[in-house]
């Protein structure tokens, strides 16, 4: 009997530390990323490497669509996700109890068109492809058309996936489409002289994407979130001072793209201050984004910036 008791105590003693670690979950974080990953994800990948050195493991879970990724966040299958501001706001408006805690990027879309279409008015009667009517590309395009050429009547087609829109442009099925700077550069390199950019939507100053988590996780893992945000902000600040590591990592991510083109995209990102870890969650930027995305469909539950974002974790200033 004594031997059995001793064995039981020894077994419990051996198992306890592991179970405590499993319950705590500290030091282990799961990030949801939409594939294919692009330049906008690179600063987070750099942050993950630095956090590893500090003992914080961040594993990456890949998703095909922002909607499935958001549902995975709701079900607790990932801890935080990097996704578009429109998706984040829609999810919160639909009842997901979460908040954006770190800014990601401002819009860097360009209206790319066939070379002979050089003005907004020239798109009259042409096929213009957008991701969705309520998403960033759809709202940017519709607002731009209304402001710049209200008489033009292009056929606005819903073509999900930027790669499908690029394929549509190459095949001549689309005449114009808003495409991010990375894909635009790749398209221009693939078909030199065949396409032109009519408009840069980065001028619109609209928040495009951010990092988003459930309220519960933000509360329970506040110290880890603080470390993550601080490190990410440090990475972005380092990129501002020296873009070489950012360029190297982006070139690694896009091995099939001409390194010179990647460098140009990286330069554009840094010079135009596309990355906005701190300002991306500030109330004024969020209010503007809510007004922008809500113009296609007003939100039912979201009233203020505080309903969708928190500045609790961001400290310091970006680009310092």
């Amino acid at each position, binding site marked *: 009997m004594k031997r059995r008791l001793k064995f039981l105590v020894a077994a419990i003693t051996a198992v306890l530390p592991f179970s405590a670690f499993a319950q705590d979950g500290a030091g282990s974080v799961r990030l949801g990323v939409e594939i294919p990953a692009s330049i906008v994800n690179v600063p987070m990948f750099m942050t993950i490497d630095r956090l590893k050195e500090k003992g914080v493991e961040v594993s990456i879970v890949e998703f095909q669509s922002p909607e499935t990724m958001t549902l995975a966040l709701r079900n607790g299958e990932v801890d935080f996700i990097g996704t578009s501001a429109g998706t984040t706001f829609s999810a919160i408006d*639909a009842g997901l109890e979460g908040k954006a805690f770190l800014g990601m990027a401002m819009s860097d879309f360009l209206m790319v068109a066939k070379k002979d279409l050089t003005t907004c008015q020239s798109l009259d009667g042409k096929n213009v492809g957008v991701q*969705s009517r*309520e998403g960033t590309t759809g709202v940017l395009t519709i607002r731009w058309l209304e402001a710049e050429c209200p008489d033009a009547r292009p056929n606005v087609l819903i073509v999900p996936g930027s*790669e499908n829109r690029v394929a*549509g442009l190459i095949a001549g099925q689309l005449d114009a489409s808003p495409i991010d700077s990375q894909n635009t550069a790749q398209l221009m390199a693939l078909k030199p002289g065949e396409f032109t950019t009519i408009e840069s939507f980065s001028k619109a100053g609209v928040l495009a994407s951010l990092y988003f988590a459930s309220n519960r996780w933000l509360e329970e893992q506040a110290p880890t979130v603080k470390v993550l945000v601080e490190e990410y902000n440090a990475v972005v600040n380092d990129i501002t001072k020296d873009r070489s590591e950012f360029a190297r990592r982006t070139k690694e991510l896009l091995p099939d793209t001409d390194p010179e083109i990647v460098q140009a995209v990286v330069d554009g990102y840094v010079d135009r201050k596309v990355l906005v870890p701190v300002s991306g969650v500030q109330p004024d930027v969020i209010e503007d984004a809510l007004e922008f995305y809500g113009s296609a469909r007003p939100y039912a539950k979201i009233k203020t910036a505080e309903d969708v974002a928190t500045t609790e974790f961001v400290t310091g200033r970006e680009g310092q």
Partner: protein
Amino acid sequence: MATASGFSQSTDWKARYLPLLLPLGLLAVIIAAWQAIGDDSASIALPTFMRTVRSFYELIVSGELPLAFFRSNIALFWGYLLALAVAIPLGIAMGSADTVRKLVNPYLMILISMPLITVLPILQLIFGLGLMTRVVVVFIFAIVYIALNTCVGVRSVPVDLQEMSRSFCASRRQQLFKVVLPHAFPAIMAGARLGLGRGIVGMVIAELFLMSEGLGSLLSFYMTRFDTGAVLAIALTMVLEGVVVISLARRVEAALTRRP
């Protein structure tokens, strides 16, 4: 005597109503369970049965669902019609001539085993962003089962029946229309039904992954809003369409095979 009559009446009642009551009872249990596990506190949560029905009603009243349904079914109609027009003669040729069967069969097997979703961007590249691509996708999804079933039906015609028709000096045309096709008809219809089901799947996949129009577009639209009630209502509409058109096909088959 009275007992025997009572027993007989009870058996009649069971035979008459049980086949109807059992499925209805199961359906009621499923709906009750669905209603119980659903959560209407947030639109992102699993919708209850009642919320799904309400979303369905709202989509109908707003006109969104009927319009999307109509747009989607244009592709289904043309794609399926094209599949029937190509697959039935192809299946007859495969069933009648070993050379044709050996030649075509590997390609049909490729179409069966290949995840067709992977070739959608290529189809879009070839056929464009319009209706044509969606028609082609429906055609590809539907053709295989119709052709293979027709082939099996033709090959199952008894040899002695064919020999008899030849001994009565029936022409090849007469053999085909008087012997082969009537015998192969149930298999062809089974293939047509399967093809129709696959065609509906193809119709939706094409809209979800290529240019959005019709039901696929509506589904994407409500998915981006995380309105799960509407998403489920649209998905159930597709299921309902499949069930209705396949039931109709079965009735057509029964009417055509009924002896005079």
